[in-house]
């Protein structure tokens, strides 16, 4: 990447212009990484469409919106603790993001054992997250929440909830499979033969994005 060093000293905007005007390659990153970023960009648009339509139906309904703080409270030790399951899920996902960041770091250090261990931990935390979500869905369905109605107010609550958290949960589930596949290849020495651990970082990008989306869902759907 001699080009990088030569253009690094240019003023910022001139560097951008040089990069975009280069004959062969605009982004000086491996193609897998550039493609993952572009995929994540498109995913950003999808999730924003969901959250925006949720905003729209919540603004336009005449009935009161169910209070998420109460809907998602759990009774622990005879006491209703608001939103506690969602808080735990948030911490589980953040923890998994941390272990993934470390996995990427150890991958570049060529520490295979730690990389595999941390990636499997990340996948396990992801699976934990999905199981807690399954528990939450079961609880809400038993309480009578449907995409077309619920016992507490605006019927749109159910459809927004199932659509947004369902699509996010699907991303987490796919991520668990993705991470385990890459972890297996780290274990078998596939990336040593290839001479590059970029794939671990690219998988990390996907996983952090899943966490990133949850930050927005947590703020707008559960806390608002």
């Amino acid at each position, binding site marked *: 990447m001699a080009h990088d060093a030569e253009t690094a000293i240019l003023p910022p905007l001139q*560097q951008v212009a040089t990069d975009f005007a280069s004959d062969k390659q605009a982004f000086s990153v491996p193609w897998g990484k550039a493609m993952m970023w572009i995929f994540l960009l498109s995913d950003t648009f999808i999730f924003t469409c969901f959250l925006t339509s949720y905003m729209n139906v919540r603004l336009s309904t005449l009935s009161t919106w169910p209070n998420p703080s109460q809907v998602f409270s759990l009774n622990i030790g005879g006491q209703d603790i608001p939103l506690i399951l969602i808080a735990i899920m948030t*911490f589980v996902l953040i923890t998994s*993001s941390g272990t993934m*960041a470390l996995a990427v770091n150890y991958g570049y250090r060529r520490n295979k054992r730690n990389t595999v261990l941390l990636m499997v931990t990340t996948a396990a935390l992801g699976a934990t997250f999905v199981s807690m979500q399954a528990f939450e869905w079961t609880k809400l369905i038993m309480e009578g929440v449907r995409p077309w109605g619920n016992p507490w107010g605006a019927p749109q609550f159910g459809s927004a909830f199932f659509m947004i958290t369902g699509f996010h949960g699907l991303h987490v589930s796919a991520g668990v499979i993705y991470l385990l596949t890459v972890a297996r290849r780290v274990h078998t020495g596939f990336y040593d033969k290839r001479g*590059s*651990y970029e794939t671990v970082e690219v998988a990390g990008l996907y996983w952090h994005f899943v966490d*990133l989306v949850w930050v927005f869902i947590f703020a707008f759907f559960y806390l*608002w």
Partner: protein
Amino acid sequence: MSEAKEGQQHPLKIYLWIWLLLFVLSTFSYLVDYFHLHGMLRWSLIIVFMLLKAGFIVAIFMHMAWERLALKFAILIPPLCLLILIGFMAIEGDYTFLTRGAAFLR
């Protein structure tokens, strides 16, 4: 390693600090709900904590802070047009609310 550094390599310490910070920020946003804050205070705190968390995840965990400006521009600028969608849909939602009120709440 004798060869040039491959990919994004940074000290572990950075990740651990950001990790801790994300925990603290998440706790704060949970406390906003726990203490039943309301109105503008609640909404502004939720947004501030959310943006801080999102920023740290993208900048540090996803290494955006160390990428070249061309990639930063290509990925971070397009989502800005979503603000227009959000603005339009907010206006539209308000309008639907008003017309529904006028039509059904007589």
